[in-house]
């Protein structure tokens, strides 16, 4: 199908973009989720603001303790190591299995976090790492932890008129590991089950994120995070076959950490 009619504006600065959003425009980043929604007419916005090339959203930065990716950094840039990976390669590998290269060349990390498909990869992986997002809106800028980011499927803390600027990821300490397991039948598909486990002994952090739950991810922290996440899957209201896949992905990710 073809998209319904909409207006397109191309702001040059974050301030211009915020003005466009205040005027009712919806952000268009890589268009790799919004494009299909427009073509299916699942989304019929009157106006889009193309933010894909905004310099502030294309930047990345590093400190001793964190790395920050602008919201418009693409999956392919992460895959290729064109932006720093604080896990020493795990995030690059995750990026390389998101969709297909032609989609990764356009799709952005910020677009994925804003879209908040429960089966998307960055939501689970960056939540496990303790990431946070920076948001600009009419009232100024604020920071939100990803652990509380999703309130349900395709629902986040992002309010209308707000723009996701960047995501900041704390650097795991030496000896830390991030395990990530995505179960799907075909390469590049959205996951049927996701488990991400961060084990960072030097910071005494063990965080388990179980994704593709049809809603906000299951998050458990602490030494017994694994068993507690398994218990949460048992209590999860979804279908039994899907719960089984969540258990399997979690077992595998915990196994990777133990290995």
């Amino acid at each position: 199908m073809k998209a319904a009619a909409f207006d397109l504006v191309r702001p040059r600065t974050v301030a211009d973009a915020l003005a466009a959003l205040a005027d009712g425009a919806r952000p268009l980043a890589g268009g790799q989720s919004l494009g299909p929604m427009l073509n299916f007419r699942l989304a019929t916005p009157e106006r889009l603001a193309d933010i894909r090339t905004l310099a502030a959203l294309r930047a990345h930065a590093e400190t001793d303790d964190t790395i920050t990716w602008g919201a418009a950094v693409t999956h392919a840039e992460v895959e290729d190591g064109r932006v720093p990976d604080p896990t020493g390669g795990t995030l690059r590998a995750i990026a390389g299995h998101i969709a297909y290269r032609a989609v990764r060349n356009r799709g952005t990390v910020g677009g994925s976090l804003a879209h908040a498909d429960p089966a998307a990869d960055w939501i689970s992986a960056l939540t496990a790492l303790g990431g946070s997002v920076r948001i600009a809106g009419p009232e100024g800028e604020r920071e939100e932890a990803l652990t509380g980011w999703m309130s349900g499927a395709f629902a986040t803390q992002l309010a209308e008129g707000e723009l996701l600027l960047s995501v900041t990821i704390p650097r795991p300490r030496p000896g830390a590991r991030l395990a990530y397991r995505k179960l799907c039948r075909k390469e590049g598909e959205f996951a049927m089950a996701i488990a991400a486990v961060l084990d960072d002994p030097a910071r005494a952090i063990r965080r388990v994120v179980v994704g593709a739950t049809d809603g906000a991810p299951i998050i458990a922290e602490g030494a017994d995070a694994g068993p507690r996440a398994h218990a949460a899957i048992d209590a999860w209201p979804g279908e039994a076959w899907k719960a089984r896949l969540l258990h399997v992905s979690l077992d595998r990710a915990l196994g990777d950490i133990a290995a």
Partner: protein
Amino acid sequence: MTTLTVNGIETTLDVPPRTHLADALRETLGLTGTHLGCEHGVCGACTVELDGSPARACIAFAAACAGAVVRTIEGFEYDSVMAELRAAFTAHHALQCGYCTPGMLITARDIVLRIPGADEARVRRELAGNLCRCTGYQGIVDAILAVLAARRG
């Protein structure tokens, strides 16, 4: 009005924002080598080169491509890697109806240039986003592996 470069020629398009790049290429510019299958990013038939990298033309809007450099299958006529791939696709029976072929070739060229050491498993992984309903993929994989091997010498 949207100005972009298509196959080396600066082109001005008068299309509304809702027109996706593939429709603009096909309907306005008559470049029908870019095919449309699913129109939601899954099948790969519409894959073109956008600012030097493969992209889906069905979910990029032409007006959002102002200033971009676009190369469609027609723009690769004199490209040496594409010439090698065309010959290999012919030799290995990598197409039947040809519907997927423009997208396959643009993806294949990206694989050859970006991952010169790719083995069969990697080629298959990289092709996961281009669907072919005719060949069963074996001929396509063989053709790409042959070009990779020939270029490694």
